[in-house]
């Protein structure tokens, strides 16, 4: 089992540990509900150093990334972060990733921990027609996420940097005690905040600086249990649940990540064919009407007939409902459709709803910053 850089700290704090990919990670420190609320109301810090960091460099870096991923890097400004997908030849999703463009010839990719080896092999296999090199920097990197309305205040006190000055999905490199930190306004919780990539040897120092800065607002370490409840409430998809190699972006409601007019890319032909034929299943968000909690793999039913499967489900503590994501036959995928979830043999009523379940209150977050300025 691999350990995150702050593992000893987690043990010291008596975190309940759990396995995730090949890693032993904290499930929770206090409780999932407490940590979920802390991120929504104050701020929380996640050690997500298990994720993969790949460096793409060379004169063909942009052309190469445009071929191996679905989104368009050619029109991306330097300092922008871009959500994208790696597809196989069938149009199925190999991974969902974030691309950070430093320059036309230099990019950093952050990829899912469970797919890091697969992605590195896949990307390496496709370099031969391009002047580009792919380097796996994962073992030398640490990644933290700081999420919540107090994030700006904490970054200001820890690094003397104004997070509020950065537009959404951009990144800057800041210097802290002689180390470079790539700070990006990205996140997986639906809250304001940032994710930081930096040298693994600085993990302890950065962690301590953030905790010292965040003590006044009740900054807490957050486990993977709350990471999942937060992302589900924000309707963020999870590879392995909502996506796998047999699911296409058109089915997963990720067509917006696919740029058809940028030239050829792996999986384009298959997606075009599917678009012509029409998709047979689609990803929907639903909320429970009856009391039960939907979970991964539970059948989705319509008047006694099976129409799909739950991919992720659970309780949404902030919105006060039980919610889920799942695939259903396209014709049943309209918002407002009432469905049943088969929960341990009992049919429990649910309704397809618009995404997301939760949206942060930007007015509240702006107010948070102003209070600090007083």
């Amino acid at each position, binding site marked *: 089992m691999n350990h995150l850089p702050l593992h000893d700290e987690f043990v010291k704090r008596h975190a309940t540990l759990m396995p995730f990919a090949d890693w032993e990670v904290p499930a929770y420190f206090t*409780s999932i509900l407490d940590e979920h609320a802390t991120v929504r109301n104050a701020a929380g810090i996640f050690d997500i150093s298990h994720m993969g960091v790949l460096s793409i460099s060379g004169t063909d870096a942009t052309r190469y990334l445009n071929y191996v991923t679905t989104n368009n890097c050619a029109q991306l400004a330097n300092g922008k972060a871009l959500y994208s997908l790696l597809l196989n030849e069938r149009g199925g999703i190999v991974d969902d990733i974030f691309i950070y463009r430093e320059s036309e010839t230099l990019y950093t990719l952050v990829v899912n921990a469970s797919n890091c080896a697969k992605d590195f092999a896949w990307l390496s296999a496709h370099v031969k027609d391009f002047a580009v090199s792919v380097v796996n920097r994962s073992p030398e990197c640490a990644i933290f996420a700081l999420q919540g309305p107090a994030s700006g205040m904490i970054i200001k006190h820890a690094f003397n940097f104004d997070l509020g000055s950065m537009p959404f999905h951009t990144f800057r490199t800041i210097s802290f005690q002689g180390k470079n930190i790539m700070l990006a306004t990205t996140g997986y919780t639906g809250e304001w905040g940032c994710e930081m990539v930096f040298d693994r040897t600085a993990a302890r120092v950065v962690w301590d600086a953030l905790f010292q800065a965040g003590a006044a607002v009740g900054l807490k370490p957050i486990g993977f*249990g709350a990471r999942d409840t937060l992302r589900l409430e924000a309707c963020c998809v999870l590879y392995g649940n909502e996506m796998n190699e047999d699911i296409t972006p058109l089915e997963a409601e990720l067509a917006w990540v696919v740029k058809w007019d940028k030239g050829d890319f792996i999986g384009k032909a298959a997606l075009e064919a599917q678009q012509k034929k029409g998709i047979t299943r689609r990803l929907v968000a639903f909320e429970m009407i009856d*009391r039960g909690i939907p979970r991964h793999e539970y059948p989705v039913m319509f008047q006694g007939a099976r129409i799909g499967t739950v991919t992720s489900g659970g*309780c949404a503590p902030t919105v006060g409902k*039980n919610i889920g994501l799942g695939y259903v036959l396209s014709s049943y995928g309209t918002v407002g459709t009432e469905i049943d979830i088969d929960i*341990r043999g009992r049919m429990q009523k649910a309704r397809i709803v618009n995404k997301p379940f939760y949206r942060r209150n930007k007015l509240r977050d702006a107010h948070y910053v102003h209070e600090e300025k007083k």
Partner: protein
Amino acid sequence: MKFPQELRYAKSHEWAKQDGAVSTVGVTEYAQKELSDVVYVELPDVGKKVSAGDAVCVVESVKAAFDIYAPISGIIKEVNRTLESEPGLVNTDCYGKGWFFKIEGTDSKDITLLMDAVTYEKHVAASAH
């Protein structure tokens, strides 16, 4: 951790409190700690006949669902409807307001087969990782 002396305990971490023919059943402090946040309880039907060791209802934490087992054989007399709106009582008051159901026992021997507090505490120490 607290294991009240007057209760009897099952290996599966339920407690039973006998009052004549009727026993109240809940889960122990060890169980509620292992579960962490309880967010849902699916109570059994009143009148249901159960045998000792049967899975009779379900308790759900944020992450997973768990079976609750009848510690004695009998008929479900009453269920704690409050848990439907306040499942967190299982965590905050597992021996009091967090009770699950009451069984009218059919065999007076059953309760004697359960562990006393001292034996259960040893069982928990062996279970803990």
